[in-house]
C-alpha cells in the first residue's frame, strides 16, 4: 500500500515543470553567505586571476571591499577606473584591517604612488608576522629608494636580516648606491648582505644571486680591481639570463690583468648565445682585439672576419623580421606558432627552435612601452578566450532550450488534469478508508510511516495546483530564456568584433614600436660591423706598412 502510494505521487513531469518555474531570468541577488563570497573574491585576487575576480565582484562588494576591488583593478590594468577608487581610499580617510592596509600599500606602490603607499604601510607597524614584515620592509625600502632616500631605505632594512624579500631589497639598495654615488663601497656592502641572505635554492633565488655576483664584479672592475671582480664573475651560472654580460666582463677583467688566454676563452663562451643579447657583440669584437694585443695577428684577422660574418647575418635577420612584422603582425611573428613562409631562420643554428625568436622577443619587451602593449595583448587574449567559451556555451544553451521547449509542448498537450484530479480523489478516499483501522492497531502507524503518507496525500492538491501554474508559465519562461540567449549571443558577437579590432590596433602599434627598436638595433649592429671591418683594415694596413721581417710574426698563415 505504501509503495503504491509513493509510486503514484512520483510524477516525472513535476520535476521538469517545477524546475522551469524556479529558475527565474532576473539576475538573482547574492545567495552565497557573505563570508564565503568575500573569501572567494579574495582568493581570485591573491591567486592572480584578476579577470575572474572582477567578474564575480558585484557593486555591493566593490563598495564594501574597496581595497580588494582596487587590487583586482590594478592587476587587470584598469588605471582610469582605479584612480577614483584610490582617491576614496586615501590613507587619511579610510579605516581598514591590517590585510587591507597592506594590500592598499602595494596597490599604491605598483601605481607609482610612493607617498600614499608609505602612509598605508605605516599603519601596519607592529601588526605583522615575521614573514609579512619582510615583504613590508621590501616595499617600504623600495619606496624610499624611488623617492631618492637611500639612507631611509637602509634604516628600514637594518633591523630585519632574513628572507628573500630583504635580499632583493638589499640588491635594489646596492644598485641605487651604485648609480648615485662615486664611491662604490656602500653598494658593495649592500650586495654582500644581499648575497648572505640568499639561500640560492629556488630558480628566483639563484637568478638573484647571479645578478648580485655580476653587479659586484662590475663595480669592482669599475673600481680598478679586476682580480677581485673575476672572483664574482666566476660565480655567475652559465644558464643565467645575465651570463653573456658576465662572461664578457669577465673577459675584460682577465685582459686587465694581462691574462689574454683566459679573456679569449671567456669571450668564446659568449659566442653560443644569441647575438642580440647584451655582451655578445662586445665579445665578438673583443676577441680579435685581444689577439691583436697579444701579437696573434692572423687569429685576429680570422676573428674579425668571423665577427663581420656574424654581424652581417644578424643584419639580415633584423631586415627579415622588420619586413615580416608589417606583413604578418607582431603576434604571429614573435608569439604564435612558427611556420610562416620566410621564417626559416628561426629553425637554424639551434636544437631549441625558438632560441633566436625568444631572444628577439626578450629584446623587444625590454622596452617598457612595448612591454605594456604586450601585457595588454595578453589581457585582451584572455577576454577573447572568455568570449569563445561563452559563444560555445550559448550555442549549447540555445539547442538545449529549443529541445526542452519542444518536449515541454508535447508533455503539456498530454497532461490530463482531470485524470490527475480523479486519481487524487481516489487516493484520498483510499487513504481515509485505511486511516481509522491503521490508527486503531497499536504500533502500525509507526511501522507504516503513516504520518508521512498522510502528509503526502494532503499535499497532492497543492502540488497539482503548483503544477498547473508551472504548465501555464513554463512555455513563456522557456521562450524568455531563449530570447535572453539570443540577446546574449548578439552581445557576445558585437564585443567579439570590437575586441578583434582593438587587438589588431594593438598589434599595429606593437609593429610600429618594434620597428623603431629594431631600427636602433640595426644601427647598433651596423656600427659593430663597421668597427669589425675597420679593425680588419687596420691590421691589414699595419701589415702592409710594416718594415719588420715577416718571420717575426707568430703565425705565418697570412704572410
Amino acid at each position: 500500500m505504501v509503495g503504491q502510494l509513493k509510486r503514484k505521487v512520483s510524477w516525472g513531469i513535476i520535476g521538469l515543470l517545477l524546475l522551469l518555474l524556479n529558475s527565474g531570468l532576473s539576475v538573482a541577488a547574492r545567495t552565497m553567505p557573505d563570508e564565503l563570497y568575500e573569501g572567494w573574491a579574495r582568493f581570485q585576487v591573491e591567486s592572480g586571476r584578476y579577470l575572474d575576480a572582477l567578474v564575480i565582484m558585484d557593486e555591493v562588494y566593490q563598495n564594501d571591499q574597496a581595497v580588494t576591488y582596487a587590487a583586482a583593478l590594478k592587476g587587470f590594468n584598469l588605471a582610469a577606473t582605479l584612480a577614483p577608487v584610490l582617491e576614496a581610499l586615501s590613507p587619511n580617510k579610510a579605516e581598514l584591517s591590517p590585510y587591507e592596509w597592506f594590500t592598499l600599500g602595494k596597490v599604491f606602490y605598483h601605481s607609482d604612488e610612493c607617498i600614499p603607499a608609505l602612509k598605508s604601510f605605516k599603519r601596519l607597524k607592529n601588526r605583522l608576522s615575521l614573514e609579512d614584515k619582510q615583504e613590508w620592509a621590501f616595499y617600504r625600502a623600495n619606496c624610499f629608494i624611488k623617492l631618492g632616500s637611500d639612507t631611509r631605505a637602509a634604516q628600514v632594512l637594518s633591523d630585519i636580516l632574513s628572507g628573500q624579500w630583504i635580499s632583493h631589497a638589499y640588491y635594489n639598495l646596492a644598485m641605487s648606491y651604485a648609480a648615485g654615488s662615486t664611491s662604490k663601497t656602500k653598494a658593495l656592502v649592500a650586495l654582500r648582505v644581499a648575497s648572505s641572505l640568499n639561500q640560492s635554492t629556488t630558480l628566483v633565488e639563484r637568478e638573484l644571486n647571479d645578478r648580485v655576483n655580476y653587479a659586484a664584479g662590475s663595480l669592482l672592475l669599475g673600481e680598478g680591481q679586476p682580480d677581485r671582480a673575476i672572483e664574482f664573475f666566476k660565480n655567475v651560472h652559465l644558464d643565467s639570463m645575465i651570463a653573456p654580460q658576465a662572461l664578457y666582463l669577465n673577459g675584460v677583467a682577465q685582459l686587465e690583468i694581462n691574462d689574454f688566454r683566459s679573456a679569449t676563452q671567456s669571450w668564446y663562451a659568449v659566442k653560443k648565445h644569441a647575438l642580440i643579447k647584451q655582451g655578445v657583440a662586445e665579445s665578438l669584437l673583443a676577441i680579435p682585439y685581444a689577439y691583436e694585443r697579444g701579437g696573434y695577428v692572423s687569429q685576429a684577422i680570422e676573428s674579425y672576419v668571423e665577427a663581420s660574418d656574424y654581424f652581417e647575418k644578424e643584419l639580415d635577420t633584423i631586415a627579415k623580421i622588420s619586413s615580416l612584422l608589417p606583413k604578418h603582425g607582431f603576434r604571429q611573428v614573435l608569439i604564435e606558432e612558427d611556420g610562416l613562409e620566410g621564417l626559416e631562420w628561426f629553425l637554424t643554428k639551434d636544437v631549441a627552435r625558438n632560441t633566436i625568436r625568444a631572444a628577439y622577443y626578450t629584446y623587444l619587451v625590454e622596452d617598457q612601452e612595448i612591454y605594456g602593449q604586450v601585457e595588454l595583448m595578453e589581457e585582451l587574449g584572455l577576454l577573447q578566450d572568455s568570449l569563445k567559451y561563452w559563444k560555445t556555451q550559448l550555442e549549447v544553451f540555445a539547442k538545449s532550450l529549443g529541445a526542452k521547449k519542444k518536449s515541454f509542448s508535447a508533455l503539456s498537450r498530454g497532461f490530463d488534469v482531470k485524470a490527475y484530479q480523479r486519481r487524487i480523489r481516489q487516493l484520498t478516499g483510499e487513504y481515509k478508508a485505511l486511516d481509522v483501522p491503521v490508527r486503531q492497531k497499536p504500533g502500525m502507524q509507526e511501522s507504516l510511516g503513516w504520518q508521512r503518507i498522510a502528509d503526502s496525500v494532503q499535499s497532492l492538491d497543492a502540488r497539482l495546483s503548483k503544477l498547473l501554474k508551472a504548465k501555464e508559465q513554463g512555455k513563456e519562461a522557456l521562450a524568455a530564456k531563449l530570447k535572453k540567449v539570443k540577446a546574449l549571443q548578439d552581445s557576445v558577437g558585437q564585443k567579439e568584433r570590437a575586441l578583434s579590432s582593438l587587438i589588431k590596433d594593438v598589434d599595429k602599434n606593437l609593429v610600429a614600436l618594434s620597428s623603431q627598436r629594431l631600427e636602433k638595433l640595426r644601427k647598433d649592429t651596423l656600427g659593430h660591423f663597421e668597427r669589425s671591418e675597420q679593425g680588419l683594415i687596420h691590421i691589414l694596413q699595419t701589415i702592409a706598412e710594416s718594415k719588420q721581417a715577416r718571420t717575426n710574426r707568430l703565425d705565418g698563415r697570412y704572410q
Partner: protein
Amino acid sequence: MDTRPLSLLHAFRFVIAILISVSAFSAQGSDSQEIAKRAEQLKLDLIELNRELYQFEEDLLHPANTQLALFLSIDPDSNFLLDSVELRLNDQIITTHLYREKELAALRKGGVQRLYLGSLADGVHKLSARFNGQGSNSRYYRRNKALRFTKDDSAKFIQLVVTENDRTREPLFKVKQW
C-alpha cells in the same frame, strides 16, 4: 684609429641596465595612450558581459533550489602544505585540484576557493574529501574526511577547513555547513 671595443664604460652601462627593479615606467606614446583608453572601456564592458553570462549560466544550470557549492579554506595559522584534494559525492569523483604555491598563499591570506558548483536532488547525500600534503612536522599526510548531509530545496554551501592541532601540530580537517 682606435678599434678598442673594451671601454670600461660598458661595465657601467650594464650596471644601469640591471637597475630595472627600481626603475620607473617610461612615458607612453600617443598611440599607446589612445589604445589604453579604448582598452579600458572595452575591458569594463566585457567584465560586465561576463558577469551577466555567469549569472545566466548559474540560473540555468544550477538554480538556487538544486545548487550545491563546495569551498575550501586554510586556517592562516596552519602550516600544512596542501598538495592536492579530491572530492567525491555519493562515491563518484566530482573534482580534484592540485595546488600551486600562489594558490596556497592566497588561501593563507584568507582566500576561500570554490572547488565545485553543481546541481543535486533533495535528500541525504554523502560527501568525502581526500587531502594530501605535508604537515609542519615534515610528515606526509593523506587524510579522508566524510560527511553525510541533507539537501533541501535551497542552495547548499559546504566549506572544508584545513586547520592544525595546536598541541601536536597535526593537520585537522573540518567541515562547515552554511
